[in-house]
Structures are given as C-alpha cells and as structure tokens.
C-alpha cells in the first residue's frame, strides 16, 4: 500500500444523499470530499483546494456539470461508478480531452439477470399473481389468467453492449430467438442485426432496452416503434427512462395497444405515471437493476483498477469512447 505522501489525490463528487466511498479507496488514495467541509460551499472549496486535482470520482448518478468541471483546470480523468454515464457532461470532457471511465462489466451480469427476471415476470405474471395470492383471492376466484410462453418469442435487444450480450446468452436456452440493433453491426456476433429500432420492433415480440442514453437515443422508443412492436409486444427497460417516450408508452399500455412492460427506469424518477400503478401487465421497479450485495464489491475493483491504471499511466479498464 502507498504511504500517505505517495497516495495520489482523488476528488470525490457526490450528491449529499450518497454515502462516502468505500474504505479501500482511502487506503490507496488521498480523498478530497467537499461535502465533509461544511464551512465551505462546494464551489469555494474547489476554487481553493482543487486546482491541481487530476482525477475525480463521480459517485452514482451525481450530475457532473461543466460548471463544476470549470473549477478543475488540471482535471484529466472522470472515474464513473455507475453503469450509465449520461449524468456527466461528456461534451465538455471531450472538448477538454478529459478521459472518462464507467463501471465496465461490474454490473453486466446483475443487469442481465434482472432483465430476464422482469421478462419472465411480465410474460408469466409473477408479481401480479403474487399480489393475487397475497390478497387472499385464490380461494375466491380460482384460476388466475394465463400467461404467455417464453419459448419461441422473438427478442430484440436494443444495444448489444455488456448488459445486452449477457441478456442474449441467458435467453437462448429458454427458446427465444435473438436479434439486435446497435450503433454499428458487431462483427463477431451471429444474431441478426437491424440498422434501426423500428425494423427490429416489427420483427420482435419483445424489445429489451439496455443501451446508453445520448442525444441520439433520447425517446428512441417512440410511437412508431411501439406500433411496430404490436399489441402483444412487451418492452423491458433497464437503460434510462428517457430512452422511451413515456407519455406514449402509458397511452399504449392503457389502451391495450401494447402487451406489457417491465420498467426499472422512468423519465422523472422517483415519479411513476399513476396510470401504470393499477395495470397488471406491467412490472415496476425503482431503478435497482444492478443493485445486489455482490455488485458493489465488483464495482470497487473497477473503480480502484481504473484509478490505479490512470496514475501509473497504464491502459484504463473501462474507458468510455467520447465520439
């Protein structure tokens, strides 16, 4: 372990609700946390103490704006600790040549597991029939409405990144067929590629949304895509709420123009459109798709790994390409 003098300085960026980072980080780095110095505002703290800071660790989805970045003239890297990175001003980072890393594969398996869980839940009515039983309705009503079989379902994956490819791998033995859309066709992948999401939706029974939120992908699941998917279609979203036109989604679901949905993310969390709260063909989740007791240990490894690689001029573990 480096001695106190040898430990490189890392600035912690977090919203007050998020706890301090893990203890193992302070063994290796000198952590500067503005929120622990309540006498100063963050702005003045940074102006006075952070002029030589080269690395910032952004906890969770704490927004990192160009305002904050402008107070850090020596900044060279933003180390993210979540699957998505849309809360960081990537344009500003690109402009200044600041490197950015994300959680890499730390959350891929947990995210993929959750997608499959949501899909089975929607198709086989797991949560809604659990409600039925818990409300004491089984003796009274007898059978619960039948679900729909997974086998033979055509699954379209929107974004075949680390989470998307783990989803595909898991769904194959269930008898699902896999196709995908992505910014570019992946050369080593045998699943059929669709250049646009509408085309994919037209040939799918299920759409799994697990891509990054960018300017291009905002509201990419829109009215046309939902129409193409059809009234038996199911959408699973573990990406970001804004990937889907939420008002249209609600409209489609309420009118029976879509078969069902499993949603872990929403446009205005923690607010969920109230029309969804009474539907039995949707499964709702409070943005926890990658939260498991084990995932934090994996994340710690990635964060420490990226910071150590940066400070020793080695290749980063999970750099984000800033196009």
């Amino acid at each position, binding site marked *: 372990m480096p001695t106190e003098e040898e430990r490189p300085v890392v600035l912690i960026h977090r919203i007050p609700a998020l706890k301090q980072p893990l203890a193992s980080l302070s063994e290796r780095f000198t952590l500067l946390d503005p929120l622990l110095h309540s006498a100063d505002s963050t702005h003045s703290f940074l102006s006075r103490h952070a002029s030589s800071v080269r690395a910032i660790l952004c906890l969770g989805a704490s927004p990192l704006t160009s305002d904050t970045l402008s107070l850090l003239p020596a900044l060279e890297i933003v180390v993210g600790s979540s699957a998505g990175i849309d809360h960081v001003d990537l344009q500003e980072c690109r402009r200044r040549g600041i490197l950015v890393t994300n959680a890499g594969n730390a959350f891929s*398996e*947990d995210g*993929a*597991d*959750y997608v*499959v*869980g*949501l899909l*089975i*839940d929607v*198709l*086989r*009515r*797991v*949560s809604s*029939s*659990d*409600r*039925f*039983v*818990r409300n*004491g309705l*089984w*003796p009274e009503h*007898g*059978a*619960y409405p*039948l*679900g*729909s*079989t*997974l*086998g033979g379902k055509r699954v379209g994956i929107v974004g075949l990144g680390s989470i998307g490819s783990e989803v595909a*791998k*898991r*769904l*194959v*033995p*269930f*008898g699902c067929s896999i196709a995908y859309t992505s910014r570019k066709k992946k050369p080593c992948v045998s699943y059929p590629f669709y250049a646009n999401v509408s085309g994919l939706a037209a040939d799918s029974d299920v759409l799994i949304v697990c891509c990054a939120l960018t300017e291009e992908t905002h509201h990419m699941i829109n009215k046309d895509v939902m129409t193409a998917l059809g009234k038996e279609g199911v959408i699973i979203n573990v990406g970001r709420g804004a990937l889907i036109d939420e008002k249209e989604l609600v409209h489609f679901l309420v009118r029976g123009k879509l078969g069902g949905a499993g949603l872990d993310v929403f446009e205005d*969390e*923690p*607010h*969920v459109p109230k029309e969804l*709260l009474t539907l039995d063909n949707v*499964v*709702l*989740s*409070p943005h*926890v798709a990658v*939260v*498991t*007791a*084990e*995932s934090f240990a994996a994340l710690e490894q990635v964060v420490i790994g990226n910071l150590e690689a940066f400070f020793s001029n080695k290749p980063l573990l999970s750099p984000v390409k800033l196009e």
Partner: protein
Amino acid sequence: MESIGVLMACPMNTYLEQELERRFNLFKFWTVSDKTQFLKAQQNNIRAVVGNATAGADAELIDALPKLEIVSSFSVGLDKVDMVKCKEKGVRVTNTPDVLTDDVADLAIGLMLAVLRRLCESDRYVRSGKWKKGDYKLTTKVRFTGKTVGIIGLGRIGMAVAKRAEAFSCPINYYSRTEKPNLKYKYYPSVVELASNCHILVVACPLTEETRHIINREVIDALGPKGVLINIGRGPHVDERELVSALVEGRLGGAGLDVFENEPHVPEELFGLENVVLMPHVGSGTVETRKTMADLVLGNLEAHFLNKPLLTPVV
C-alpha cells in the same frame, strides 16, 4: 363418440371443457350436488375420466365406475390417480409430458430471480408510492449469477431447469433415486447433503409415497438462513408447517412457491414476508401450453375410443 360418457373431475380449462362437450357426453363432476347418487346413476355410462393436478381418479372413484376404460390427466403429475388400482383393473392412464416442461422450467428460474432480486417487493414498493417518499429501505438483494442450484429429480423438468441455470453460470448439483451417468452435474446421494451444498434448492420430482415431505425440517436446516427453496412440484413435497415457521423465524433465506399442501389455501403467515414469492399453481399456465395440453388429452381419448395407439400412455 357423442354417446361416450366422460367425467371431468373439476374445472381446468374452458377450451378442453367445450371440446369434451362437443365430442362426448360430458359430465361435470363439480356441478353435481350428490356425487354418490350421481355415480350410481351413471356408472354404466362413464368410460373415461379427465383429471388434473387438483382432482383425478382415486380408488373410490375407480371402484364406482365399472365401465371405466381410461383416465386422461390434464397434467404430467399423476399423484391424484390411483395407478395401482388402474393397473389392477386394466384402466389406461395418459398424462401430458414434454409439452409443459419448458413453461415449468421457465417459471422455476423466474421464481429464483423474483426471490433473490426481490422483484415482487420492488413492484409493491413502487405501486404503494413508497419510492416517491423515499424513506423505506428495500431488503437486501442477492446476485443470481453463479449461485449453486440443487435440483431434486433430474427428469425432463429438472434437466430443463439445469440447462437454463447454466446460462447464468450456476453450478448444478442434484439428487435423484439413482445417479445419472455421463453428466457434468454433481450428484449427492441424499437430499440433506444436496441442501447443504447449494444456495437454491428446486423440487422437480414426482409426488409419490416416498417423496411426500421430502423437504422436511432437516433439509430446511441444511439449506439454512441464506438458502432459497423453489417448489414447482407438488405442495405435499414440502412439510409446509415447518417451512412456514422456518421462513417466519428467519431460519430459511427465502422461498418461491407455485404449489401448496392445501390449494387454493396458502398459509397467511407468508403474506407479510418479503423473501417469498407465491403463485397460484401456474407452472404450465400459459395460453399456448394449456391448449397443447388440452389437445393431447383429447387426442388420447380419441385414439383410445378409435382403438388406435395412445399418444402419451403411462399405463
């Protein structure tokens, strides 16, 4: 065949009921108030019984129907059919194997994910408005990938569960009456040893006299406070009272249950627990599979009465 009397043991499927009505002389047992009287009156008319997991053909019923030729079950499990009696009397028995294997296995995995990742609790949390208030902490969620899955009964359904769990990098252990050769899964010679060596224990064997309460106090203790029980078999596979007290006292980590000892009654102590998922016996409950099962029941009956080979005979 409209004159052939068929007795349907209980409501099970509208399409099946309609087709039986169309093709045979259907008697709906559940609509009869005096069953003894009814059987006495119709004993020479009824040549077939259609049953399921809830009600089938026990010794008493078989004895009351001297003209009974075939029992066609709308299920793969035959614990509600007195097989010994059927063999004795030369009554044919058919079930619905294979066609429901995938749906049941899918649900087993769905239950594992729902329990470990707290899907139902999360859904309740959002629906109740608690997420907006933000002051309630959800219970701990556990990763599913890589967890060891122990399967009791490596038949069609057990193997289908194993195949799916493998895609999640789950090591597979199993218990079976005899060890299966050439399998990459690890065999344990007793259920207790299996329970001590897995994180998630799945019941996927038939219900017989030997397997009744195969999940007892000893097995539950071996599975332990982090262990999860998944029952996609039959309610009587599990000593339900022991299970309930273990869950309430925290001696068992969680459970995903599709079946119960006294369906449709489910122990109410379970209703307030976040680490259980409760389903109303829907392992094969999809539109697609129930239709296929119904067609298989009809196909078996037709084959029998046309003197053709049965499609899926057991006896």
